């Protein structure tokens, strides 16, 4: 599987965020998107996720499921956690598992993998920022998607959480997955660096 973007250009609010950007990543490889604030890391991830339309350029995913588009084969972990405070931890997770569909994993096991199984019946409103992040990460595990688009994935995670997430990313890459992560901190896994911005 190969994810490639060619000559990408993104314009937001009349301002050019980035232009003539090329990227490529193959299965089992992680791409770390780095750069100063405002360099367009989040915009790039949202373009890849199909949530922003690039002003120029094209994105292709070769070797995936031909019936599905790139966003349909991708997980997007954004700044916002997509959790409902009124629902319990288990309800939040099983909703996304049922809604996203495809190859699913047992919800209880996913919660255990991020060490949240003790809080399964707690309303999500009572979770700390780090626990919310863990719950979002459980979503990535509950449904199998080959491409992970991660925006500052380790923010709010404690040291144990970061170590845990590194393990999960390694497992995902080992199973033929592909990761594009925007980050300021070292990811903790072998990743190719995509440096953005600076002179823009």
């Amino acid at each position, binding site marked *: 599987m190969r994810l490639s973007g060619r000559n990408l250009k993104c314009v937001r609010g009349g301002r050019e965020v980035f232009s003539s950007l090329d990227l490529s990543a193959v299965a089992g490889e992680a791409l770390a998107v780095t750069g100063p604030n405002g360099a367009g890391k989040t915009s790039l991830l949202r373009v890849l996720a199909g949530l922003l339309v690039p002003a120029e350029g094209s994105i292709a995913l070769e070797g995936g499921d031909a019936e599905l588009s790139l966003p349909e084969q991708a997980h*997007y972990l*954004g700044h916002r956690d997509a959790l409902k405070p*009124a629902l319990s931890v288990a*309800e939040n997770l099983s909703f996304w598992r*049922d809604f996203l569909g495809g190859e699913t994993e047992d919800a209880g096991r996913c919660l255990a993998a991020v060490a949240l199984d003790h809080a399964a019946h707690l309303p999500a409103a009572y979770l700390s920022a780090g626990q919310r992040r863990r719950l979002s990460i459980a979503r990535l595990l509950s449904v199998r998607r080959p491409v992970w688009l991660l925006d500052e994935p380790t923010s709010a995670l404690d040291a144990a959480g970061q170590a845990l997430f590194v393990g999960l990313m390694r497992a995902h890459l080992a199973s033929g997955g592909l990761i594009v992560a925007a980050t300021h901190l070292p990811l903790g896994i072998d990743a190719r660096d995509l440096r953005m911005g600076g002179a823009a």
Partner: protein
Amino acid sequence: MSALTALIRRDIRIALRVGGGALIGVLFFLTVTVLMPFAVGPDLALLSRLGPAILWLGALLASLLTLDRLFTADHEDGSLDLIVMSRTPLELACAAKALAHWIAAGLPLIIATPVLGLLLNLDGTATLAVAATLLAGTPALTFTGMIGAALAVTLHRGGLLLAVLVLPLSIPVLIFGVAASQAAISGPLPFGTPFSILCALSLASLVIGPFAAAASLRHGLD
């Protein structure tokens, strides 16, 4: 299909929990209806003549009250991004969300109608007629309102804009809803004529609403 049932079940569950909109809509409906006799005065004949119109206005405003959270809540917490990316067509997801909203916020209004009819001096037939027209007409309110909710999704405090956008669209529903109720009570028109137009309006909005809402959600993504 299971994706849509999951979405409907989630939205209903959230609406029924603390802080959800379902109960607030009914309470608002109750308040509007209870206030009317105080404003109009204790003229029973006048009240029963105005009754269907008052109930319809109350239901319209109550359904509008909770509609602005239809997409904004999902937009603010990032759920909407995932819904847009998912393998479920956005049109179907919009339809499922509107259906869930109608079940959680529209049906309780209809169930409350017989009780509120008592306060407005409506007899059994009249109350039944109003409830039937609400049952046929409120889906149209929800599904046209959804278009406004989708347009206003990226705006903070979009609720007011929603009302300005949606209320004009709901005029036909209001006209035929009240006309059908009046026809059942006093004639001379047969109840069926305006009622079938009301049903037609609902069916048309059932088709148009999800497509229009999905299109404006896609356009408004940022």
